């Protein structure tokens, strides 16, 4: 049976070579804002950045072939898990900083903040993993900064994980922060913010696809991507002198699954600017 019955099997899998090690570095090039979630996948470093670059409003899958944290090749019919995740910062600036490891699944590029028209998406592909959409969240990531002078609102029309179409998200208000890579709904100092993910309609457990996005009134000058992600692990960097190490089986009480083809990357909530700050880390996976 795939997976581990006990810790001994996990150790045996590592001893048998069913494990991979990867070190990473992310160094944001933009001035990030305190208390605004930031998408590390667009930052320089190793792995290389990606830019949510595709035809406007066309659903585009993200897979391991697009980069992300290297977790080893496909292992099916075996199952792969995070064995150990370590992160540290080269600077005290920006700390303490929660970090969320996500499987990035699909995105809809170049949503326009400069129009009040409904912007329909083209869905010629489906979620590459977590196919039902359960647990899948929507992230609105800036790819061309707003001026910050206005704070447009928007709603997302989506299909939930039960397959119900026409679901309407909560009305979301954009930040005044303007850096590329910032998550537009996440300014934790604002009373209208909900955090890194778009608030779903009551009772919904996740998102399978997005049909459209609408800014009903105010407009701005920026562009953003709507990204479907599955958060899989959260931890925090507390201070420069101490790396944060997570072993899910030991410290989280259970394994964290990584599916074949997963595009893994991180979002973070800095306490200041991360411009030029190196975030280093290690990822070890194991499969059985």
């Amino acid at each position, binding site marked *: 049976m795939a997976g581990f019955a006990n810790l001994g099997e996990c150790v045996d899998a590592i001893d048998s070579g069913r494990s991979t090690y990867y070190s990473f570095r992310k160094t944001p090039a933009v001035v990030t804002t305190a208390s605004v979630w930031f998408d590390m996948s667009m930052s320089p470093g190793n792995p290389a950045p*990606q830019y949510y670059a595709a035809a406007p409003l066309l659903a585009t899958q993200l897979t391991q072939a697009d980069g992300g944290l290297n977790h080893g090749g496909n292992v099916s019919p075996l199952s792969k898990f995070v064995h150990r995740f370590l992160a540290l910062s080269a600077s005290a600036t920006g700390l303490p900083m929660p970090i969320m490891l996500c499987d990035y699944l699909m995105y809809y590029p170049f949503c326009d903040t400069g129009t009040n028209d409904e912007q329909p998406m083209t869905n010629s592909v489906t979620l590459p993993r977590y196919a039902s959409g359960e647990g899948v969240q929507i992230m609105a990531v800036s790819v061309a900064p707003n001026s910050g002078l206005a704070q447009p609102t928007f709603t997302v029309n989506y299909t939930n994980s039960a397959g119900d179409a026409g679901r309407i998200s909560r009305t979301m208000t954009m930040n005044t922060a303007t850096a590329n890579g910032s998550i537009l709904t996440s300014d934790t100092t604002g009373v209208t913010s909900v955090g890194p993910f778009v608030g779903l309609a009551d009772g919904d457990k996740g998102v399978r696809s997005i049909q459209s996005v609408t800014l009903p009134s105010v407009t701005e*000058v920026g562009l953003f991507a709507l990204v479907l992600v599955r958060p899989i692990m959260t931890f925090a960097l507390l201070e420069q002198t101490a790396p944060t190490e997570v072993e899910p089986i030991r410290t989280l009480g259970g394994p964290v699954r990584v599916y074949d083809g997963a595009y893994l990357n991180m979002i973070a909530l800095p306490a200041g600017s991360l411009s030029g700050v190196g975030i280093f880390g290690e990822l070890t996976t194991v499969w059985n």
Partner: protein
Amino acid sequence: MTAQELLKKMKGTQADRQALMQALIQKTMDGEALSETEVVFMEALKKEFIQVRPVSQVVEMTATVAGGATMRAR
């Protein structure tokens, strides 16, 4: 160019997108750095217009760029 102007060209015809890509390339050839937003668009245009081919399919071509210089590409 503003983000909205870039997006309008991106949503235009293939010729519009080719012209946009040429304009961005010309900007770098002129020694100007692309903005973060222009980099995002350049990445999208590269996916449409630049294909990595096996060596056996490599062809060589030349083009005359602004100013009359000849650029050779493989």
